[in-house]
């Protein structure tokens, strides 16, 4: 199946980021990384010139989950851990909308772990942004699945005795077709990464390192702006894959051997042990989306979508002809 071009609903006149702020006052803690992420989303939507009322923003439950209340677009604050099912269901029935999903690391990788895995298998064209702060913010600082074993942020009663997951490696293994990492206070990189994720046709994961000054004293903002010694020289903690010779983009998705090799390389990159944090696109491949595949097995969907096929006339009389369905039962 050939892959198609991404077509986003855009405006001739772009809306400004400030127009995308909702009226709801933000109630995150001062200094929280979440601010940066919501700003980046507003800027990305603005800069891409998206039609705001065609943007459907789904979020989970947690501090992060409140984001959908802060973007002036159709916003759905779902259930803890369930943001992906909501987003997938919405996109499948109406592919004309731009579907964004976001939530916490507890939400997405913890209770939502099963959906996280299986969403990779479908490749529905949505963008999923995870606020990775290593804790459960809104319930007061318990360990999230990205907290490393042995760590004990101040909010934990005992040191953490479970190993952490590597969300990037898992996402690549699970089948996500765009996997990137960014940082909430790197406004430019984050905005660009979100834009690239939206432009990617298929399921994109953007894992965003997000300081939680209230509960995560291990990795505050300062940690990210610190210099670290690498091979004897002082280097910024945060750097960009784009500045290295690593390139996670699959050039030809039809060459199965090459795709496989690249995938291993991407996973290896995600596991790379280093004091520094590499931001950027770890993996990107163009593949048929779930929507494409649906059309290939359900011809009635070609050139239309579930929400578009009519089923009643103006007088609200149902127009569905059941003859075909009746056939096997007639006696």
């Amino acid at each position: 199946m050939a892959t198609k071009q991404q077509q986003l609903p855009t405006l001739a006149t772009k809306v400004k980021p400030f127009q995308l702020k909702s009226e709801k006052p933000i109630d995150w803690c001062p200094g929280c990384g979440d601010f940066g992420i919501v700003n980046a989303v507003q800027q990305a939507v603005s800069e891409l010139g998206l039609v705001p009322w065609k943007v459907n923003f789904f979020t989970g439950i947690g501090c992060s989950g409140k984001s959908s209340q802060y973007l002036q677009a159709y916003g759905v604050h779902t259930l803890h851990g369930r943001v992906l099912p909501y987003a997938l269901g919405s996109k499948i029935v109406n592919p004309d909308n731009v579907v964004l999903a976001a939530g916490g690391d507890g939400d997405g990788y913890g209770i939502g772990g099963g959906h996280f895995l299986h969403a990779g298998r479908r490749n529905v064209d949505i963008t999923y942004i995870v606020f990775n702060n290593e804790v459960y913010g809104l319930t007061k600082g318990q360990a999230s699945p990205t907290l490393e074993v042995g760590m004990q942020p101040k909010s934990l009663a005992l040191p953490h005795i479970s190993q952490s997951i590597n969300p990037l490696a898992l996402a690549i293994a699970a089948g996500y077709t765009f996997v990137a990492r960014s940082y909430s206070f790197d406004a430019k990189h984050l905005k660009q990464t979100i834009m690239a994720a939206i432009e990617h046709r298929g399921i994109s994961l953007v894992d965003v390192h997000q300081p939680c000054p209230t509960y995560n004293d291990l990795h505050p903002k300062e940690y990210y702006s610190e210099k670290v010694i690498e091979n004897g020289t002082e280097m910024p903690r945060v750097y960009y894959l784009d500045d290295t010779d690593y390139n996670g983009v699959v050039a030809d998705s039809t060459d199965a051997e090459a795709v496989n090799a690249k995938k291993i390389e991407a996973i290896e990159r995600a596991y790379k042990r280093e004091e520094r944090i590499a931001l950027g696109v770890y993996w990107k491949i163009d593949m048929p989306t779930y929507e494409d595949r649906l059309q290939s097995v359900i011809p009635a969907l070609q050139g239309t979508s579930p929400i578009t096929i009519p089923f009643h006339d103006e007088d609200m009389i149902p127009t569905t002809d059941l003859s075909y369905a009746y056939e096997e039962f007639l006696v």
Partner: protein
Amino acid sequence: MGVITDTSWMIGGPQGSGVDSSATLFARSMAVAGYWVYGKREYHSNIKGAHSYFHLRVKTTPVRSHIDPIHLLSTFEDSTAEIHAHEIVAGGALIYDPSVTKPETLEMDASVKLFPIEFETIIRDLAEELGKPAAKLAIVKNTIAVAASLALYGVGLDVLEEALKGLFRGKKAGLVGVNLAAGKKAYQVIQSVEGWDTFAYRLAPQTNKPEPNSRLLMNGAAACGIGKLKAGCRFQTYYSITPAVDECIWLEQQTEYGIVVYQAEDEIASINMANGAAYTGARTSTATSGPGFCLKAEGIGWAGMNEVPTVITNYQRGGPSTGLPTRNEQGDLLFALNIGHGDFPRIVVASGDMEECFEDGFNAFNFAERYQTPTILLIDKALANSTQTIPKFAEKHLRIDRGQIVGAPESFNPEDPATGLPKFNRFKVTESGISPRSLPGTPGRIHFLTGDEHTEYGVITEKPEIRIAMMDKRDRKLHTAAREIPQDLQFKLYGPEQADITIVGWGSSKGIIIDALDELKAQGVTANYLHIRLMSPFPAEKVAEILTNAKKTMIIESNFSNQLAKVIKMETGITIPHHVAKYTGRPISQCEAVSAVQEVLTKNSRKVMLSCGH
């Protein structure tokens, strides 16, 4: 020569041996012959090997239930006769393979007529004639057992041929010939047995033959699926589970209609994907059974809080837990009425027969969208898996009701994006409780959804006065629904207005009890039947009126604790004094219903437990 107008036939065998298709062929043949058929399917939670059977009743007039005695037992292997022979009535008949079944070892009435069929011989002969290997023809055993039965009932070969043609269409049409040939041989064998034509349960010819192709031979799962299709359902999510999976797979095959059937990773994803899609504006449903229904609790509450029109079909099966996963029960009523924490409105409808499955499958979306609240359909396994001949569904009276959906406001100017940005009071407090809804993609109607308590705009709030306004508003929708939903979709009294006893029931018992009313009348008892279909909002007032005016009341349910009786007591304060319960996972038969009523009338029993059936 005995001819009757109502007969009970059974075929059985290990799962995977073709019992289902035999039963379908038999039912189709009888339907082609113009009779009315009701068939109930019993099987284990097993793929191959465990005993299963199909119990069919054939009548010259419409039929909606099974009876316990068997007139003709048709078998092609050893186990079925061993298990069921004792159920054959005096003067009934047994078709069997003498190489595996020894009638003298069976516990069976002495007057049962024996019809031995050497299946292997027939198949060998056939193989020779057709020049095919006998092993490839083993499957025609089923056709032989059916054809032999038809012969005995006095139904012609032409009928069998017609039925085979209906069954094997398209690519499978080639199978008609060999099956018909096998059938012919079975007829010959039967007709060579002495006294075959004096079989006591030979069927009276159908004189009042319905128009060919004017009826459907269908089960409740498909009926509900067809109702959903007619309603414009475009997205159905599910996670495989017996017996809900039948409806889903059937819908998946209806590719003509553009419906997307999504096999999710679990039932939690199913309900929440459905919520996402229903919110987006597609008519959406999800189907499941007990264990999966449990997992949907949180998602249903979210839909209630966010006024999202998701339809949930719960196919009830034997519980609790994994329970009796392939058996019948009406055990989830109280759970459905109370699923999810906190108070939120939900509509709960329980279908009683094929027509109700179809209509409720259709209406569910109207209810869900008009009242903007999750709508739960309860169908019990006995209904889902039973086959019945029914007239084609009436469709003319059906109307789509999408409730209040609003488009772009007049103030929207496509040239000026800012006019598309204003917020919209999606959760406007109204007298009916229903607020105008906009679908994502609509300019000028931006709003939020959240499971938290929220303002008219969907913004999270913890303000007491808004909380009160919103709880009250959501609740009012249920009162509006109670007023608006036509009374005959809420409940119905069958039989005479005045009766010696009023039987209350719901779900699949409907057909059984209605059939029982006739039999009771024949036995000199006037009974009527109050069938309850709308469980939430519950028609408390009217039900109370009927019960208060009734001479004597009793309830029949297929669950342990008589859940509907509890609901009635909670809603009306009325205690129904006589409870009939069946919780073996086997559906109630007409005979059981009749004798339960008699027991209540004669012995005044407070509790009757039914246990017929394997």
